[in-house]
């Protein structure tokens, strides 16, 4: 229990594959003087070939700006963008083998569904027969064969979404950029399209860079996630790494629910205000400060009757959520802590408000934050 270990190196899985996109120290400054906004601040990230990579962060954190730099709609103020090892920073959008699915779909209103899908291929100067074949294949891929000759204004939002996907996939880009493509859809359709997107990525083998502000969407769909805030990438890792081992307060807060505890660093781990010492996982790039914060997910802890081990406290509220129950515990000298336990059919909760309890922390459950 005593050896503190570093969270898995998040780029390990990427190194074994070829790199599709390599963003090196990219910054984007808009405006000057008082209007100056650093939409991206020295961002570096590598995205592997055939990866489903997600940029996750709140509105205004720079996700769209990063996509635009990769697509070529904006020029970086500093830094470089490499596509399969080649610097593409100076290429105009039409010379980059990268396609975008726009947030509002941006379908050409004066063309049919098939016309939209054929557009990229026509611009690439592909022969007529090949275009026809590819368009048919794309229509089949997104299950829109019947609507090939409809105007894009005569189909539903979900169908427009599929056309936008087919149009962007038809030229077989090296990388597909998707800017919050599901945010305009209702919940049911969104769930359907999430599965559809995963299938399309699997069938085409194209690298997807997917933007969302929805943490659940990011966790369920991605191979890896980059969590962004205020123009910076705070952490990159698999959904599990990001969820289990958040490196910063922002990441821990943004994704899922969590308990924060303050303590002092010791050789073994972290000593809390109530004297209990916990083994913790350490984040990358940890500075040598002594006062630290640790996080523990509510479901990574268990409630027990008052015992010698664990964190002692008084149970204040029991909140029933259907699938699980939340126990709000007032810890001695350490603030409030929430424990989440799965409900079993027929079993009544073993504790009630006012009970003296202890919280048992699971192995590897405590994660120290960088900040």
């Amino acid at each position, binding site marked *: 229990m005593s050896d503190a270990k570093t969270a898995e190196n998040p780029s390990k899985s990427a190194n074994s594959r070829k790199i599709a996109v390599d963003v090196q120290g990219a910054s984007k400054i808009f405006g000057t003087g008082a209007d100056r906004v650093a939409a991206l601040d020295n961002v570096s990230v590598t995205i592997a070939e055939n990866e489903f990579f997600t940029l996750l962060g709140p509105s205004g954190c720079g996700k769209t700006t990063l996509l635009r730099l990769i697509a070529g709609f904006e020029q970086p103020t500093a830094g470089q963008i490499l596509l399969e090892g080649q610097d593409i920073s100076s290429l105009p959008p*039409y010379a980059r083998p990268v396609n975008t699915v726009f947030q509002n779909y941006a379908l050409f209103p004066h063309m049919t569904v098939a016309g939209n899908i054929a557009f990229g291929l026509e611009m690439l100067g592909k022969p007529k027969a090949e275009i026809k074949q590819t368009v048919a294949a794309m229509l089949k891929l997104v299950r829109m064969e019947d609507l090939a000759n409809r105007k894009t204004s005569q189909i539903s939002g979900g169908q427009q979404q599929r056309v936008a996907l087919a149009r962007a996939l038809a030229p077989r880009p090296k990388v597909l950029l998707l800017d919050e493509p599901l945010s305009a859809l209702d919940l049911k359709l969104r769930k359907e399209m999430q599965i559809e997107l995963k299938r399309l990525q699997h069938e085409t083998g194209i690298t997807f860079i997917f933007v969302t502000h929805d943490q659940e969407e990011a966790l369920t769909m991605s191979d890896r996630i980059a969590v962004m805030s205020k123009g910076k990438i705070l952490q990159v890792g698999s959904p599990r790494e990001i969820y289990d081992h958040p490196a910063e307060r922002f990441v821990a807060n943004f994704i899922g629910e969590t308990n924060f505890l303050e303590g002092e660093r010791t050789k073994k781990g972290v000593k809390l205000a109530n004297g209990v010492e916990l083994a913790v996982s350490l984040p990358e790039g940890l500075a040598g400060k002594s006062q630290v914060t640790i996080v523990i997910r509510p479901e990574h802890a268990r409630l027990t009757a008052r015992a010698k081990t664990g964190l002692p406290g008084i149970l204040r509220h029991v909140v029933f959520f259907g699938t699980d129950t939340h126990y709000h515990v007032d810890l001695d000298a350490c603030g409030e802590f929430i424990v989440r336990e799965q409900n079993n059919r027929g079993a009544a909760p073993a504790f009630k408000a006012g009970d003296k309890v202890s919280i048992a922390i699971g192995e590897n459950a405590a994660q120290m934050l960088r900040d």
Partner: protein
Amino acid sequence: MARRFSVTSQPGFVFLAMLTFFLLYLPVATLVFYSFNAGVSVAIWEGFSLRWYHTAMANEAVQEAALRSAFIAFIAAIIATISATMAAIATTRTPEYPGLTFKYAFINQPLMVPEIVTAVALLIVFSRIKIWTDYSGLGYLIAAHTAFCIPFAYLPIRARLESMDLTLERAAADLYATPFQAFRRITLPLLWPGIIAGFMLAFVTSLDDVVITEFVKSGGQETLPTYMLGQLRRSVTPEINAISTIFLGISVLFVTIFFLISRKKN
């Protein structure tokens, strides 16, 4: 519950509205009415007849002036529309820079300069050019009409470009279209309604012009409006009403088409 204030429910509203419409259209209605007069007076009704329409159609001076008007309006509107389209693209599709608002105002300046000032200025400049070049054809009228038609063509085209979703052009570039291809395949087809509307407005504006034409035209270059003005100085018969009514019909047709086109979305 207090009723919301509504201007249409105020006492006398209906009466006032009717009166306004009546006063607005009374002169025009009278003019149209007497164009069908069988007699020679524009004020005393002597029964229905298409006599003055026949007279007007058969009048060679009217035919000539009408054709000249149409010719000038057509050429001027085409040149103005092309210039206005290029100006509209340049002023809506370049990233903002300090002089842009100034340029926008500059393009629309002809709308602000009193027409009589433009007319006098053109008269002076053109008379010089006439002496130097010895050319006295329709070119002067066409040039003058083109100049004052440009802002009329510019406004609907610019409005159309501004309301166009910019991500469409971005999507075209993303799908390997060069800037020229993106313009030809995406921007231009979506801009057509604006261009046609701009052309219509420019055409009607040119067709209707009196002041500048009166100052700029050389001998024997009557347009329909200046011919009509000349006629009014002499004797007035319902022939002028008939010509006006036809003119009115054409203008209404064009302006209606303009409204239908500019209201159409995508």
